[in-house]
C-alpha cells in the first residue's frame, strides 16, 4: 500500500514566472500588514507591475532558452510551448488590467461597511481604500498562470480555486452600485463553488478509473482499463461541466452577465480577458492530453455545446440594454467561437493549426476586450459609469475619438477585416474547416453575422442617433486608462493589419503541442 517516500524534486527555474507572481503577492500582503496606509498604494503599484513584467521577462527567457519537453515538478506542472504562450498572454493582459485597476475610484472604500451607512460615509471621507486588491489580483493572476499549465487534475483544481477565490472577493468591491456588486459576488461565488465541486467529483471518478490523476496516465489508462466506462464517462462529463462553466459556455453561461455587470469594471476586464485565456488553456490541456484518446466520445458533445454557446451568446446579446451585459454575452459568443477550434482535432498538424488558431484568437480577443471595458470605465454620469445603452446615444458627437475607438473595438469583436478579431476568427474557422467541422463553421458564421447586428446597433446608437440632453460625460482618462485604451487600439490595429509575427509565434508555440 504505502510505498517508501523519497524526497521529490522541483525545477524552480521553470516555475520562476509563477513563483515571482506569487512571491510578489505575498510581499504585497506584508506591505498591507506593515506599511502605513498613505504609502500602501504607492508601494503596491510598482510592486505589482514590476512583478508582472518580471514574470513576463522570465517567460520570454524560458521560451528563448528552449521549451522543455517533459513536465516539471514531478509531472505536476507542464511548462510547454502553449503554456508559455498563454503565460505571456495572461501576463500582458494582467499588466494592462492592473493599469486600469490602478485608476482609483472603481473600488469601495470599506467593503465591510453597510452601503449607505454612516461608517461608509466616514470611510469615504477618511480616504480609506482597499489596497488589498493588488495582492488579490496577483494571487488571481498566479492562479491563472498555474491553471493552464497544470498537468494533473489536483493541481488544476487548486489552481482553479486560487484563480477564482480572489476574483469572488474582487467582484464585491465596486465603489458604486454596492448592492449589485455584492450580489454579483455572491452569485459568482455560489455558482463557482458549485461548478468546482463538479470538477472535483469528476477528478475523483477519473482517479477511480485510472488510478492516477496525472493527465498522461489517465490518457494511457483509456486504452488499458476496461469495464469501468461508467466512471470514465461520468468523470469526464463532470470535469467538462466544471471547465465549461469557467469559460461560460452554454448552458453554464448564466453567471456571466450578472457577474460582469456587477463587478468593478477593471475587474471585469481582468476576468473577461485573463480568466478566459487561462480557462481555455486548461480546457485544451484536459481534453487533448487527458482525454485525447476519448475524443470520439466528447467531440460530439462539444459540438453541441459550441453551437449552443454561439447561438445563445449571439441571440441573447441582441436583447440587452446594458453595455456590460452586452459585452458579457458577446464574450459568451466568443467562447463558442473558440470552442469551434477546440473540437477541430485530428492529425498532429491539424491539432497544431487548431491550437495556434485558438492561441491567436485568445490574444486578439483578450486585448480588445480589455480595451472595450477600459472605454466603459470612462463613460460616466452622476451615478458612476453609464451602463444603459440609451445613455450612449450620440456619444460620437460628444467625444468622437473615444466613440471611434470603441466602434473600432466593436468592429473587431464583429470580426470585420483589418481588425484583429477577423484574423482570430479566420484562424479558428480555417482550422475547423480543415478539421472537417464545416457545419460548425457555418453555424459560427451565421452566429457572427447575428452578433455583428448588435455590435453595429451600438455603433448606430453612438454615431447616427442624436445625443440625449443630459447625456453622460466622458471623464478625462487617467494616464493609466488612456494608456490601456491606446495600447488596446494599437494592438487591435496591428494584429488586424500585420498579424504575422504573433501568428508565427503562436504557430511555433503550438508546434510542440502539449507535453505528455
Amino acid at each position, binding site marked *: 500500500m504505502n510505498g*517508501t*517516500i*523519497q*524526497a*521529490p*524534486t522541483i525545477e524552480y527555474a521553470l516555475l520562476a514566472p509563477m513563483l515571482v507572481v506569487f512571491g510578489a503577492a*505575498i510581499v504585497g*500582503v*506584508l506591505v*498591507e*500588514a*506593515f506599511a502605513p496606509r498613505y504609502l500602501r498604494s504607492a508601494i503596491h503599484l510598482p510592486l505589482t507591475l514590476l512583478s508582472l513584467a518580471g514574470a513576463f521577462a522570465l517567460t520570454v527567457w524560458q521560451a528563448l532558452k528552449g521549451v522543455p519537453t517533459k513536465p516539471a515538478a514531478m509531472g505536476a506542472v507542464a511548462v510547454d510551448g502553449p503554456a508559455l504562450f498563454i503565460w505571456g498572454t495572461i501576463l500582458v493582459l494582467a499588466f494592462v488590467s492592473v493599469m486600469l485597476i490602478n485608476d482609483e475610484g472603481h473600488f469601495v472604500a470599506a467593503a465591510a461597511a453597510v452601503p449607505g451607512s454612516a461608517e461608509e460615509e466616514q470611510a469615504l471621507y477618511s480616504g480609506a481604500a482597499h489596497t488589498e486588491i493588488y495582492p488579490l489580483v496577483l494571487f488571481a493572476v498566479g492562479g491563472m498562470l498555474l491553471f493552464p499549465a497544470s498537468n494533473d487534475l489536483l493541481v488544476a483544481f487548486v489552481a482553479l480555486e486560487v484563480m477564482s477565490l480572489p476574483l469572488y472577493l474582487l467582484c464585491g468591491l465596486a465603489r458604486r452600485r454596492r448592492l449589485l456588486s455584492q450580489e454579483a459576488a455572491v452569485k459568482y461565488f455560489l455558482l463557482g463553488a458549485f461548478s468546482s465541486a463538479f470538477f472535483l467529483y469528476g477528478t475523483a471518478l477519473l482517479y477511480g478509473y485510472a488510478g492516477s490523476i496525472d493527465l498522461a496516465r489517465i490518457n494511457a489508462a483509456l486504452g488499458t482499463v476496461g469495464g469501468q466506462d461508467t466512471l470514465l464517462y461520468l468523470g469526464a462529463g463532470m470535469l467538462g461541466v466544471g471547465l465549461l462553466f469557467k469559460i461560460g459556455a452554454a448552458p453554464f453561461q448564466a453567471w456571466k452577465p450578472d457577474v460582469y455587470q456587477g463587478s468593478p469594471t477593471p475587474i471585469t476586464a481582468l476576468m473577461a480577458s485573463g480568466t478566459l485565456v487561462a480557462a481555455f488553456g486548461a480546457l485544451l490541456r484536459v481534453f487533448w492530453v487527458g482525454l485525447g484518446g476519448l475524443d470520439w466520445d466528447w467531440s460530439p458533445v462539444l459540438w453541441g455545446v459550441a453551437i449552443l454557446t454561439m447561438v445563445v451568446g449571439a441571440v441573447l446579446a441582441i436583447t440587452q440594454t446594458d453595455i456590460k451585459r452586452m459585452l458579457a454575452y458577446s464574450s459568451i459568443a466568443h467562447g463558442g467561437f473558440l470552442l469551434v477550434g477546440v473540437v477541430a482535432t485530428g492529425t498532429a498538424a491539424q491539432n497544431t493549426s487548431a491550437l495556434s488558431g485558438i492561441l491567436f484568437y485568445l490574444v486578439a480577443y483578450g486585448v480588445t476586450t480589455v480595451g472595450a471595458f477600459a472605454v466603459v470605465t470612462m463613460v460616466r454620469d452622476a451615478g458612476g459609469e453609464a451602463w444603459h445603452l440609451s445613455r450612449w446615444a450620440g456619444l460620437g458627437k460628444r467625444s468622437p475619438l473615444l466613440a471611434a475607438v470603441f466602434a473600432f473595438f466593436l468592429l473587431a469583436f464583429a470580426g470585420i477585416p483589418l481588425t484583429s478579431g477577423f484574423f482570430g476568427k479566420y484562424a479558428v474557422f480555417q482550422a475547423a474547416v480543415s478539421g472537417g467541422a464545416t457545419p460548425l463553421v457555418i453555424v459560427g458564421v451565421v452566429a457572427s453575422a447575428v452578433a455583428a447586428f448588435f455590435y453595429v446597433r451600438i455603433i448606430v446608437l453612438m454615431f447616427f442617433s442624436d445625443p440625449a440632453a443630459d447625456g453622460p460625460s466622458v471623464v478625462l482618462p487617467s494616464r493609466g486608462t488612456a494608456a490601456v485604451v491606446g495600447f488596446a487600439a494599437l494592438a487591435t490595429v496591428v494584429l488586424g493589419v500585420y498579424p504575422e509575427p504573433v501568428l508565427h509565434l503562436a504557430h511555433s508555440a503550438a508546434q510542440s503541442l502539449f507535453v505528455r
Partner: protein
Amino acid sequence: MELYVPILVLAVLAAGFAVFSVGIAPFTGPKRWNRAKLDAYECGIEPTPQPVGGGRFPLKYMITAMLFIVFDIEIIFLYPWAVAFDKLGVFGLVEMVLFIVTVLVAYAYVWRRRGLDWD
C-alpha cells in the same frame, strides 16, 4: 478495522450511560411547577425574548472560527510532514519553512488588522 472495534465498545458504553442518566433525570426528581422556574435565567429580570433559530451574535466569533480553520489546516499538513520528516529530509525542511513563513505572513496581516485582538 479491527483496531476500531474496542473504541466502538467504549463508545456504546459511554453513550448508554449518558443517555440513560439524562433520560431518567425527569423521572427521578419531583415535579413542582412554577412559571418563574421555567423562564430563561437572567438574574431575575424579564428574560429577553430570543428569536427562533437563534439570535445574531458578534462577527468576532466567526472571525475566530475562520482563523481556527486556517490554522487547523496548517496542522493537517504539519503532522504527516513531522512523521515522514526523516524520509523527506532537507527538501521537506525547506518546503515547510516556506509554507510556515507564508502562513505567518497571512498571520501577520491578520494581527496588524486587529483580527486577533478581542474588543
